[in-house]
């Protein structure tokens, strides 16, 4: 039987182990970099302002894909108690008092530039991120509900019930206030879209467009430039990041 002798000096051993190590770890690091929009240690940038343009002309009566998608994405349950159940996004039906014509309007946190909820929050749990997303810090929210009193859009819900099996990316808990977070986990993962907008696009309505309001090349900026749009309660001067067409 032939005997093979492996000649391996220290230099060769180090070289091959390094190559093996690099080839094992590198793809992971590379793909992880691809998957993340930015490093989690890196703060959100004020160069970006995330926002939405909602075209009510394309929002149909029967469809509630955005609502369902939001509930699934964040693990929002229905306890069968509609007055206390959480709703991050809801569909409003508006009927004109003069023409009696109806339109559908998806309504959620409007991510104001000057949010009243942030002003009134005693602990600073309600805050606005550098990229314009209004969030609730679930560690410091004491559940006083002053933000709900102050919100002009009725966008916030108080968690009235015990919750179980919450999703890791959507920390929620009894006794805290919450609202639409523009799918911040998806943004931080680099997906740069929201569950509601995705669902609406998937259903072919294209009523919700998500994007960076500060980027002149983004679809949302181009559409905002091209078409007339409105802020809800623009009289309050809050400069909302959610704009509407057709109202």
């Amino acid at each position, binding site marked *: 039987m032939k005997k093979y002798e492996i000649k391996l000096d220290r230099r060769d051993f180090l070289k091959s182990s390094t190559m093996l190590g690099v080839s094992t770890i590198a793809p992971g690091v590379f793909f992880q970099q691809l998957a993340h929009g930015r490093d989690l240690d890196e703060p959100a940038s004020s160069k970006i302002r995330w926002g939405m343009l909602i075209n009510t002309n394309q929002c149909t009566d029967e469809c509630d894909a955005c609502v369902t998608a939001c509930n699934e994405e964040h693990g929002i349950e229905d306890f069968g108690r509609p007055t206390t159940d959480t709703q991050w996004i809801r569909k409003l039906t508006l*009927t004109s008092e003069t023409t009696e014509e109806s339109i559908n309007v998806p309504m959620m946190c409007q991510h104001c530039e000057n949010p009243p909820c942030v*002003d009134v929050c005693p602990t600073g749990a309600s805050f606005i991120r550098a990229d314009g997303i209004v969030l609730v810090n679930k560690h410091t929210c004491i559940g006083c509900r002053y933000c709900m009193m102050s919100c002009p859009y009725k966008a916030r819900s108080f968690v009235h019930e015990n919750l179980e099996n919450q999703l890791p990316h959507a920390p929620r808990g009894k006794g805290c206030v919450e609202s639409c977070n523009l799918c911040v986990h998806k943004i931080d993962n680099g997906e740069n879209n929201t569950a509601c907008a995705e669902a609406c696009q998937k259903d072919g309505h294209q009523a919700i467009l998500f994007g960076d309001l500060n980027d002149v090349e983004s679809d949302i900026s181009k559409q905002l430039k091209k078409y007339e749009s409105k802020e809800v309660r623009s009289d309050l001067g809050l400069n909302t990041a959610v704009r509407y067409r057709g109202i």
Partner: protein
Amino acid sequence: MRDKTDYIIIEFSKAVFFFGVVVLSFIALGFYSFLTLEHEGHWLTGMNNQVVWGLPHVFAIFLIIAASGILNIASISSVFNIKIYKPLGRLSALLAICLLTGGLMVLVLDLGRPDRLIVAMTTFNFKSIFAWNIFLYSGFMAVIALYLWMMFEARYNKFVGKVGTFAFIWRITLTTGTGSIFAFLVAKEAYGALAAPLFIALSLLMGTAIFYSILYWMDKGLDVPLGSEIIARFRRLLIYFIFTVFYITILSHLTSLYVTKNHDFEFFLLFSDNIYTLLFWVCQIGIGTILPLFILYNKKLSISPLGILLASLLVIFGGFTMLYIIIISGQAYPLDLFPGYTENSSFYDGAIASYTPSIYEIMLGLGGVGISAAIYIFAIMILDFTPKNLDDEHTLYSNNKEKIKTE
């Protein structure tokens, strides 16, 4: 000037026993309610995503503003130097601490996360009036403690005027802070800056009415005789404050009615077929304002201790109702997001929210009242807060070489 009033420590008696039993049962109810809500969640209350502040807030705000108002009696003696009120100074300051503690207790236990009180006490957003109120409330306690020290320690009696003035300014600021909670709600038609002066006036009225009710109880239960001069003074204070509250109430509704966009809300509150209209006209105006004024101006009733007690209790009922109307109706009335459109959604947009307080909210509120009363009864049994005698002979002469001129 030294306080020459005789004070006593209250000993255990039948009246104290019954008072204690009632108080402890209130506290037990409040504690049970807190534990249940903490365990089950707020769905057990009548509150919802539109009416987010319910009966516990009415109780809490009632007790907090009454705390500020009840200190007025001490202020009248030490700030405005009307000496007949001097024997009531210690009690006035004690009751302010009691009521404030009870009110804050309800407020904290109704939080979604009462376990995070330490967060509220250590993490502040100074743009929020709530954060300022935390300082105003805790500072109020400290100021009153100092005030009491000056009143108790004969050597320091000479500083009572200065500390009293500081406490006076502090409590006006405190009630302004409490009223201002409702001044910073940009989108709600029901609220405005007039809430602050209204709350100050209401605090003076509630404080006076509660104080008189306690004086009456002291007379009957603790054998502290109450003289006609004190009764007459409280009658006049009640009249002044009833008119002040009534005046600001009228002013706030009339100014609001002038603004077209507020017409719908004012019509909803004042002239519709709902519980708030009924509460406003029958309970706040009828029972809480006109009826007490009738008693206070009635020839026979206005000089009867029982008559003034009745007026005080009606005024307390009216004031509590008034806070209920202010706090609840403003939330129940829907936001108008899209003027010119009728709104409809599964989240009750455009709909008047229904709110019925649940038993847990009532129990929690009573728990706060119980805490206030428990501190009071405990304090008067260990320290000499209670003046020995409040009959005319003592109140008119004890702190004056010459008799105070009576009107």
